[in-house]
């Protein structure tokens, strides 16, 4: 009896905060997504699914955002995962100053999204930015661009900043995974004369399969949540060409005062994130591979 009471008592403080600041607002957002509301007036109009229908049929900027977010998540799932895996393997197999390399690659992940955004805004500055200056120096002037002003390039420029940021996360997770593989397996393979590529392909990759899925899920969910970098660097411009669902939601909420419609976009983001998240929970509650 005593056990029962104290258990609940101990959970209480966390539970109250969690319900007040997370659960209740989530439920409320789902409710709001069925209403038309400017956030100020007393009267909210119930519009059934019309917010969702507008999103997919009658909002040109949402479809740009959706396309951008899709491209964003595809590239973020592929590139940092791949780079992170290869870098982790190279460091794990033993190189000169491996710790330094690890620190450098991880560094962008440690600093704030705002700092990342501002650093890259500076890098992309058309006249003074390092990217164009460097291209000029090595006589590749033809490749200099207005990286953030070009409507076609801008989204890629932003994704590069995000790749710079997330590769370290992927690397560090893979690296820890590799360290949990017993060294004897590697030694045995080396004794048998396996090449390092062969070891990578036949030992490291198969044993890291679950970790790989987890990294992919992390990358996918992170890329659909993106807001900070876009907001700090371009605000979705020029001409909404770098808008992503996260930033378009924000603009609808706090610039256009369409609180119902913005909630519908937020619910859409939640739904997209939930699918890979279930996978994640399922995997992370399963036992680790035994050796």
């Amino acid at each position: 009896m005593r056990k029962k009471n104290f258990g609940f008592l101990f959970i209480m403080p966390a539970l109250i905060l969690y319900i007040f600041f997370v659960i209740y607002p989530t439920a409320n957002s789902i409710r709001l997504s069925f209403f038309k509301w400017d956030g100020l007036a007393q009267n909210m109009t119930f519009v059934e699914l019309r917010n969702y229908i507008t999103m997919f049929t009658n909002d040109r900027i949402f479809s740009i955002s959706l396309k951008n977010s899709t491209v964003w998540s595809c590239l973020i799932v592929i590139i940092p995962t791949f780079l992170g895996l290869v870098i982790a393997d190279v460091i794990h197999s033993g190189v000169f100053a491996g710790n330094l390399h690890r620190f450098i690659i991880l560094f962008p992940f440690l600093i704030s999204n705002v700092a990342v955004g501002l650093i890259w805004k500076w890098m992309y500055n058309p006249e003074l930015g390092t990217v164009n200056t460097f291209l000029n120096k090595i006589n590749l002037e033809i490749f200099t661009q207005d990286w953030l002003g070009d409507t076609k390039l801008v989204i890629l420029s932003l994704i590069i900043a995000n790749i710079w940021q997330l590769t370290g996360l992927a690397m560090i997770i893979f690296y820890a995974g590799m360290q949990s593989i017993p060294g004897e397996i590697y030694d045995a393979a080396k004794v048998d004369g396996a090449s390092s590529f062969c070891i990578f392909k036949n030992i490291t990759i198969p044993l890291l399969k679950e970790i790989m899925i987890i990294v992919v899920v992390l990358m996918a969910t992170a890329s659909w949540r993106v807001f900070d970098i876009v907001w700090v660097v371009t605000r979705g411009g020029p001409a909404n060409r770098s808008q992503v669902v996260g930033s378009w939601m924000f603009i609808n909420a706090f610039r256009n005062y369409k609180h119902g419609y913005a909630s519908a976009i937020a619910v859409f983001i939640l739904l997209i994130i939930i699918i890979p998240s279930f996978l994640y929970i399922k995997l992370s509650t399963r036992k680790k591979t035994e050796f």
Partner: protein
Amino acid sequence: MRNYILKSLSNLFLVVMSFLWVVPLYSLFITSFKSISEISKSPTALPKIWSLRYYLESWTRGNLSKFFLNSAIVSISAVIIVVFFSSLAAYGITKAKFSSYSFFYFFFIAGLFIPAQILIIPLFHLMSKTHLLNTFYGVTLLYVAYALPFCIFLFCGFFKGVPEEITESARIDGCSEFGIYLKIIMPLSKPVIATVVILQFMWFWNEYVFALVFLNKTNVKTLPLALAQYEATYVANFSCLASGIIISIIPIVVTYILFQKYFIRGLTEGAIK
């Protein structure tokens, strides 16, 4: 022989990657020492004079000291509260074993996947009704609440590994539940506490979107908010902005270097366990 070539190629690849990764940091660093005329003459060259002029300017005239303090207040108090609340909840979940244990566990874990976007509109109305807008405690409590799922997850993982005999024998000795938690479990949990402190401190220190929505008044702004705004207002003052960014990074780097081991463990435990 083939192995040797492969090895050299992979080392070369690593060096190229590290070089590419350092370039943005290098240009941030040198920009923070150069005047605007020096920057426009040669943007990528090293500064002629190494002086902390722009650091002092952004720290004092740019009011960075104020925002730095704001960030410190919010992050440190949020870290203290989140460690306390989440360890307490995790102890209740794992050691009381009451019937709805797994319900609460998954109820909290579900919060890991709730994007900030879905919270901001209802929270804006809720917090303005309850007068929590533009207050440190409002945002601090929000940070704590949003961080709880991950911290509870980490603490539960650790507490499950603490043998039942330890708590059981303390109970027989007549120790209260809170006493067991405070005097026996918490001292055992130093590694996981360190992990939570580091990861959450970094997250709180770097957080942007909640601060953007819920802290509008200048006197309560946090560092990321102030930097983004500074950039938007004084577009041309690169040197001060760059030094401001570096100042904002310093506490994070120091924490990382001091507690590297726990940082990596936390990230990977969160991912792998």
